[in-house]
């Protein structure tokens, strides 16, 4: 390798920021600006991915920036969970950029330069979250991610959008400062450190019922994981342009939430310690509740993007549920599901955006027969939906397999029943729409005769749909890598 590994971490964090600067400078020439975005995205992905072999060999590259507070460093340390999230975010940024170019131009959006700048900053923040060596560093990037995505959500700038963006910002900032921050300071005051340590740092430092309170502070403080009742920001953020929704749901934001929760369970509490505390069951209940209730709400949605938003809320709770079962298989399942869901959900959002750009339709009830006009888009949509349901040969099947395995190890019948029920409910809200889109006759005439959306969008969504299959086939190395997180 040309660079040392800590240099690589440094570049992974700074290249997107340099990209943002380049985008700002090239703002007046859209073609150059988009070239900068794409080049940066590819460069970041190469840099981040170059760390994978080291990780597989058991290496843990580190980078230290120095102390912020006595005993508390700004530091980075790549471990398998963070590697997966970092690789995912940087990889999907490329696809998302290609798609964004099609969408933003196809829709003649204003303020495109601001859009690409904030996007690049958000990616840098996501990589910062992924590679953090301690909770404080993670928290900093978590907040940067919230703030940098606010202009993206509020992109349209009209009254209603700004109001929704305010809900987004208010809930995420509010929970993180109101619950996550005290949880972190509390952890520090009892454990004397915030470093992510295999096996956790809290064992023997804190007892019930305080463990339960701390656990709840973390679970609800990490609002990006969208556990009910902290989920309202996600449907509110649906006012954003579709590439932003894809960023929120698949690439960075919600993934940062469930990633942080998993990381806190594994490296702060330690799964063995937490497993012996009765209060971890509370999180299992909350996650199960969220999965079932969000599916019922999704059933009643007629707006496609809102339906997808509630689907995401349920799918995120899969990850939280998997993490809170606290069994080896389910922890691996949690990380696998982050990836599987990312590929499936980005495809679904790309398809929803493509439909909007081509036909200006947002309501499911208007989309009868749209599969005939947009066969590629709807085929990809179907694959994404199958992955959500968990049908082989899509990625969702693999992760569900691991989660179920963990639930059986634990004899956790509540989790088993919830997973089965959720599969049925997912099928109930996706399949009728897909059938209608392909088999029914068009009943609402579109404003103009349209076919597929611009080609960059179609290319992007076809690619991500293929990724869902690829994940089904080639998941083994990833599972092996993630199994390392359980080694103390």
């Amino acid at each position: 390798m040309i660079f040392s590994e800590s240099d690589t971490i440094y570049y992974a964090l700074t290249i997107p920021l340099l990209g943002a600067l380049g985008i700002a400078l090239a703002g007046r020439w859209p073609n150059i600006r988009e070239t900068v975005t794409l080049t940066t995205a590819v460069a970041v992905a190469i840099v981040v991915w170059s760390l994978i072999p080291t990780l597989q060999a058991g290496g843990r590259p580190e980078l230290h920036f120095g102390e912020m507070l006595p005993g508390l460093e700004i530091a980075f340390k790549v471990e398998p969970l963070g590697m997966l999230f970092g690789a995912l975010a940087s990889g999907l940024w490329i696809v998302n950029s290609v798609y964004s170019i099609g969408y933003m131009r196809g829709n003649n959006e204003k303020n495109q330069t601001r859009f690409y700048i904030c996007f690049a900053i958000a990616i840098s923040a996501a990589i910062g979250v992924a590679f953090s060596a301690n909770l404080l560093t993670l928290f900093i990037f978590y907040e940067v991610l919230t703030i940098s995505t606010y202009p993206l959500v509020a992109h349209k700038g009209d009254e209603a959008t700004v109001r929704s963006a305010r809900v987004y910002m208010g809930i995420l900032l509010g929970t993180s400062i109101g619950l996550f921050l005290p949880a972190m300071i509390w952890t520090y005051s009892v454990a004397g450190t915030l470093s992510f340590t295999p096996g956790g740092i809290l064992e023997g430092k804190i007892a019930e019922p305080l463990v339960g309170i701390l656990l709840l502070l973390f679970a609800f403080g990490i609002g990006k994981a969208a556990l009910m009742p902290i989920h309202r920001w996600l449907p509110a953020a649906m006012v954003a342009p579709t590439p932003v929704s894809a960023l929120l749901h698949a690439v960075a934001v919600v993934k940062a939430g469930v990633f942080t929760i998993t990381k806190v369970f594994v490296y702060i509490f330690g799964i063995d310690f937490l497993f012996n505390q009765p209060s971890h069951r509370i999180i299992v209940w909350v996650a199960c509740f969220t999965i079932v209730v969000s599916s019922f709400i999704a059933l009643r949605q007629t707006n496609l993007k809102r339906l997808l938003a509630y689907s995401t809320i349920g799918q995120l709770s899969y990850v939280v549920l998997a993490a809170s079962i606290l069994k080896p298989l389910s922890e691996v399942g949690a990380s696998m599901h982050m990836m599987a869901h990312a590929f499936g959900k980005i495809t679904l959002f790309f398809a929803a955006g493509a439909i909007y750009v081509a036909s200006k339709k947002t309501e499911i009830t208007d989309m009868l027969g749209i599969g005939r006009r947009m066969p590629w888009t709807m085929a990809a949509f179907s694959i994404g939906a199958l992955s959500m349901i968990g049908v082989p040969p899509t990625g969702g099947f693999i992760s569900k397999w691991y989660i179920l395995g963990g639930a059986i190890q634990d004899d956790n019948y509540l989790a088993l029943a919830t997973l089965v029920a959720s599969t049925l409910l997912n099928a109930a809200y996706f399949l009728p729409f897909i059938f209608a889109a392909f088999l029914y006759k068009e009943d609402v005439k579109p404003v103009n005769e349209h076919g597929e959306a611009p080609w960059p969008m179609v290319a992007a969504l076809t690619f991500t749909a293929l990724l869902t299959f690829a994940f089904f086939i080639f998941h083994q190395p990833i599972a092996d890598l993630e199994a390392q997180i359980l080694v103390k």
Partner: protein
Amino acid sequence: MTLYDQLPALVVAVLLFTAPIAYMLRMHGFPWAAATAAVVTSFIVACSLAATAIGGETIIYEMGGWPAPYGIVLHIDALSALMAMLITGASSAALIFGAKSLADEVGEETAPAFFAAWLLCTAGLVGMVITGDAFNIFVFMEISSLSTYVLISAGPDRRALISTYRYIVMGTVGATFYLIGVGFLYMVTGTLNTADLGARVGQVEDIRLVLVAAGFVSVGLAVKAAVFPLHSWMPNAYTFAPNAVTVFIAAASTKVSLYVLIRVDYAIFQNSIANHEVQLTLFLVPLGVMALFAGSLLAIYEKNLKRLLAYSSVSQIGYIALGIAMTSVAGLTGAIVHMFNHGLIKGGMFMAVACLALRYRTVNVANLAGAGKAMPWTMAAFVMGGLGLIGVPLTPGFISKWYLVLAALEKGWLGALLVAVILISSLLAVIYVWKVIEVAYFREPRANAVPVTEEAPMVMLIPTWIVVLTGIWFALDTSVSVGLASIAAKTLLGVAL
């Protein structure tokens, strides 16, 4: 004795001696230049004192060679040094920043007197933090107060005069209370040296007079520090003062009274009155909590941007009061570091407001629509400051909040309640900061508004951004700010360094 040994005296003397010179320089621009040169010199001296203090060393300088407790001594420890840096730093930044805006707001004719008053004000504030004599603190307090009245009344709006008048009344009450308290202490101990007082008050048999003294001193200082509900002089004083003056006094002046409160309560009363920490807690915690809520709520409903920030200061002073009231190393560290950090944050924000005022000719929040586009650098500085008030990481406000929450968590269940209060008030800060950001970034200017297309001039933007970047620096590298504050807290509480 070399010049180096005289540094402690120099930090004030430079300012005091330049004041009459500035007054006599009648040429255009000269008073400003003289004042700036003196204040910057004083700042450099303060930094070098801080470099000594960070080693945990206390500098005792005997004025005129008279030893304590007979003569007056300057007593410079970590706390004094940090405050001296804040005051002279804020004064320098405000002067450099205000070169243009002050020339606008203060007439050519009054400029010499104005800048002389500025120097006296800075000298008074610095004097308060470095002297080791309780009466001397009063003298410097009066020097700074009287000159602050002059500075505020120089505001272009005629309402500045009424604001000044209210400030004079309240300020005099506060200073007099302080003096009465010190008088009582002198009566029972026969000394005015703070260190000596700390040793002797404990030996007094009739404790009642000491308690009365403590009450007068604490309330008097609370008035000067604008601790809620004794803050009523502050919002209008900030609003109608010339913009650069607001920058200076918002960053430094109330903090100095809080400094004296800490000094008197910890160095004199803490060791000598039984259960003093309980009294301090009962006095300051309710006031602090009320300040947090009342200040934030008033800010949320305020339409004038300068007054909004003033109310925000009321609530931020609540944080400091809470930190002082916790009587623990973490709490006191949090309080002290927040005095410094809040000075940086508010100073930067008032600079941004001054830039806006220059172009928009108004500081009504509603009229600032579109400022995000018209003045991107100014608004970005404002946003950075706002995030600091909320306490978002990478801003200095986060550091202070960290210590305050840490201190509250040490207090058990009652502490958990305080944590909740601190965090809820942070969320209220989100509301009043975001209110401004949304108008500036997401609302289109009114059709009949005079369009603003020009960014603030470089002479204002550069100092603003230096302050903002300094803030970010102190959020990342806390070795100086937290370093000095924790040494100060440990010294005051008598904990080994």
